């Protein structure tokens, strides 16, 4: 193979490599029922340091993606807080992930709705991308082994929580 042909092949391979890299790094992702939930660490919305879903291994966790500018998120917040008050403890917690939102707005939202469950911040939407969310709000129930057992793309209401989430939880009377 001549030098000129080698250069041409290398140039084509470089372009193909760039395209493949772009597809791999930006490509679609997401979790389905039974898949392990992503556990990459995220900054805490309130206070300092980072937190991760991995900290809750051994517990059921309802991961709730939300944003302060999202109207349905405002509607579901009281139901989530009520659910946390009733079931929250060593065996279960709601974990809020404030996605593509301003820190100040997120903190004000937590204060306004009196949310007592832990909150992480996903400013660049990387966690939302890893979970494969299509918007906010979205909810994922993760079992003690870290696998997704139930998900809802949209706001949860009291009825969803009572009829579809509560039966999974330890000590549920329903």
């Amino acid at each position, binding site marked *: 193979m001549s030098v000129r042909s080698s250069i041409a092949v290398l140039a084509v391979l470089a372009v193909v490599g760039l395209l493949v890299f772009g597809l791999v790094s930006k490509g679609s992702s997401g979790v389905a029922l039974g898949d392990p939930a992503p556990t990459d660490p995220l900054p805490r919305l309130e206070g300092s340091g980072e937190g991760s879903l991995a900290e809750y291994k051994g517990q059921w966790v309802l991961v709730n993606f939300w944003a302060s*500018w*999202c109207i349905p998120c405002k509607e579901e917040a009281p139901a989530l807080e009520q659910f946390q008050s009733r079931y929250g403890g060593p065996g279960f917690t709601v974990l809020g992930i404030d996605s593509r*939102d301003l820190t100040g707005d997120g903190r004000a939202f937590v204060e306004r709705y009196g949310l007592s469950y832990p909150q992480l911040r996903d400013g660049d*939407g*990387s966690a939302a991308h890893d979970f494969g969310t299509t918007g906010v709000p979205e909810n994922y129930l993760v079992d003690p082994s870290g696998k997704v057992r139930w998900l809802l793309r949209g706001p949860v209401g009291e009825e969803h929580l009572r009829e579809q989430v509560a039966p999974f939880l330890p000590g549920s009377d329903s």
Partner: protein
Amino acid sequence: MRGRLLLPALALLMLLGAPAVATAEERASLSEIEEQVMCPVCGTLLQLAESPQAQREKAFIRRLIAEGKTEGQIKDALVVEYGEEVLALPPDSGFSLSAYVVPIVAFLLAAIALAMGVMRWRRGGGPRDAAPRAAGPSDDDAERLDADLARYDL
């Protein structure tokens, strides 16, 4: 006397005026920043976005402008909030640097290839596959032609 006073007065005016000019130059404007940053949820320039998230982002920028922050400081603050993808132009570091380097390298390679091609063409005295000059008939053909023409000579 008037000249003596004029010079220090001018110098003082320049000293006082300089910070004001610098501040005016650095003052950020919402419309200029909107052209350089994205609405992360919509995936478009903030200038074109009207979603609730975009409205909050614009309010955040307005607040920082009111606080006297420069354009660079505001963009840095947006990166802290939304990550580097909030910038409409990719950063000039890491893999994103290839967005700037690859087109320049490709242009240079193309220019070098073109220059080499032109040099080779000029050295060869013209295009390689140009039609060869028409040669005259061979001796045999010339004799045969003369004989044929003599046959028709009236």
